[in-house]
């Protein structure tokens, strides 16, 4: 029922489930990223679809977070970061000069490694995105968006009596779910998650994973994770990065049971990394 409300209010009108033969949501072609002289990402091409979770795995410093951050152009804020190649969202080049970065980041939401709620009330945390983008018709509608987002992130029952409490007063797991609620409140098309569970305990991790499972029906989700078990549990596609190169990309079951590259095999069996 909650999902229906959101569907009706969808400002972009694009979030219907894609049929399986739809073209990929995100296409990366020959992406190279440099930090100064450091060649961080080397010629990566991959396709990402709606309706599934894509995991990016690999040892620390292999460039998975850098690649993730290039998808919503968060790297633009880093001094000395250069990028070549092409990334398209629904066929549109996101590095095109005509693309509005601010709107692009609204369409591609992001959840960070460390929960980073604003030091404002829980309500204001969730309402911030809809407010700056003018998504709510009136106060009642805004209430509804906040309710729906908190409900979907599984936080509603825990915070419904204290929406005025500060977002930073919540526990780590709750803060991370608040950040997810904040992200889905503006109804993005893609959600990027940068190690969302690395700062959480196993119970909070399980809750977030369940949440990702539900969200993948409606959003394309790309998640960076250090936990091979997590990648295996939640994702349909897995990409293995090594020293800035994409070593292997394919169905998760395939990668974990029958890796084609020796490096992947070493990494997932724990012999390296």
């Amino acid at each position, binding site marked *: 029922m909650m999902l229906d409300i959101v569907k009706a209010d969808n400002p972009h009108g694009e979030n219907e489930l894609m049929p399986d033969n739809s073209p990929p949501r995100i296409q990366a072609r020959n992406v190279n990223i440099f930090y100064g002289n450091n060649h961080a990402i080397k010629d990566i091409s991959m396709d990402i679809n709606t309706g599934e979770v894509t995991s990016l795995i690999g040892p620390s410093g292999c460039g998975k977070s850098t690649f993730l951050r290039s998808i919503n152009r968060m790297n633009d804020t880093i001094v000395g970061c250069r990028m070549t190649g092409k990334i398209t969202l629904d066929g549109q080049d996101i590095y095109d000069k005509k693309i509005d970065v601010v*709107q692009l980041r609204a369409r591609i939401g992001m959840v960070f490694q460390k929960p980073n709620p604003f030091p404002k009330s829980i309500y204001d945390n969730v309402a911030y995105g809809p407010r*700056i983008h003018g998504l709510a018709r009136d106060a009642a509608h805004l209430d509804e968006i906040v309710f729906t987002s908190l409900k979907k992130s599984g936080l509603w029952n825990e915070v419904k009596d204290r929406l005025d409490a500060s977002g930073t007063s919540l526990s780590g797991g709750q803060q991370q779910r608040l950040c997810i609620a904040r992200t889905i409140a503006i109804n993005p098309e893609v959600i990027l998650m940068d190690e969302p569970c690395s700062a959480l305990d196993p119970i909070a991790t399980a809750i977030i994973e369940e949440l990702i499972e539900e969200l993948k029906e409606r959003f394309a989700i790309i998640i960076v994770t250090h936990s091979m078990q997590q990648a295996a549990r939640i994702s349909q596609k897995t990409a293995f990065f090594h020293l800035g190169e994409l070593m292997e990309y394919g169905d998760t079951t395939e990668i974990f049971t029958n890796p084609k590259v020796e490096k992947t095999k070493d990494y997932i069996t724990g012999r390296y990394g």
Partner: protein
Amino acid sequence: MTDQNQNITPPTQGPTGWTSEAMQARIRRRYRTEKIFKLMGLGGLLTALATLCILLVTIFYTGTSGFQETRIKLDISLSENAFAGVAALDKAEREEALRKVNYSTLIRNSLLKTFPDVKKRREVFALMKLVSNGARDEIRQKIIADPSLIGKTISLDLLASSVVDIFFKGQISRDIPQSNRKISDQQIAWLDHLSADGRIIRQFNRSFFTSGDSREPEMAGILGAAMGSFLTLLVTLLIAFPIGVSSAIYLEEFAPKNRWTDLIEININNLAAVPSIIFGLLGLAIFLNVFNMPRSAPLVGGLTLALMTLPTIIIASRAAIRAVPPSIRQAAIGLGASPIQTVFHHVLPLSMPGILTGTIIGMAQALGETAPLLMIGMVAFIVDLPHGVMDAATALPVQIFLWADSPERGFMEKTSAAIIVLIVFLIMMNGLAIWLRQKFEKNW
């Protein structure tokens, strides 16, 4: 790797002698160093505290008497003769006519009635010296307020002269020879007589807080200087705060990090260390000579102090902005907030306590600043209260400087009293800064 490890022979070293004599000595030495360091720190702290205490005690010891004044109760006969025809005039004309009345005669008549023996001209003159010149104004104000007093004899507490004031405050000793003190044996005898009659009154000096500067120590007040300081600081705040904060925001959030911004940063830091009198010269050269702004005006003083305060505000604001965790900026940008929205919705509110603290400290610095104001003419003797930023004015620290420079003995306690007022203002401003910081500080 593992093969190599096996080849390395462990260093030849016996078990560590934790209880050996050498080890014990080392530990003792360590504790001794620690103790000496602690004592040195404590000593430094105590020296600083003692100096501060001595300073404050001296100032308060001399200064508190400055908040008191001495008055002489006299029966003034407002005879019809002296005010002939004044009662019939309308309000404006009456005030004009009252200005011309010789009030000295009234005071002299009253004093001569109390001391009928005084006949000689020189003695009368000495007797008149007991009462302040301001007493004449006090009588006039009384009559302007209530014209029906004309024709009656009224009892008034008239302001005593500064010499009488400090004599009763014990700052002039009877023991020193007459030729070495400002007050003669004869005058002391008269004062003793008045005192025995209960005609000497010591009370709180209200006019110190309600009047401007004066040549007479007993009439001098700090309101003019305080107003001048207030107007100057107002201009400083209005100019320095917006410019300082926006510069800090630009430099921290928007400016590209290159050689130019490095150069700007170095220059801002250097400006903070430039002696303040240089800023005074700058103000003199630019605001007075180029723009022909009025001399001695709080506007010019405020502009000059704004230049001086800007680096402080910029440095403090940049530090406050830098202290906002980057994760907050990322969260806002990740939600599709524009850079300006990120700054104004998140970064600025979070850094506001730090910015305000820096601003208030900068303002307190400006409040205590004398040198630049000397250069732009705010050091003049100004009796009238300034009512706008274009009026001639002086400032509290400059007033202190002027009084400290005056030869009259009575200005000594006034100087200390003015210092106390300035210190109270500074403590209040710093208290406000601390309160703001604690009230708005957020933890995450």
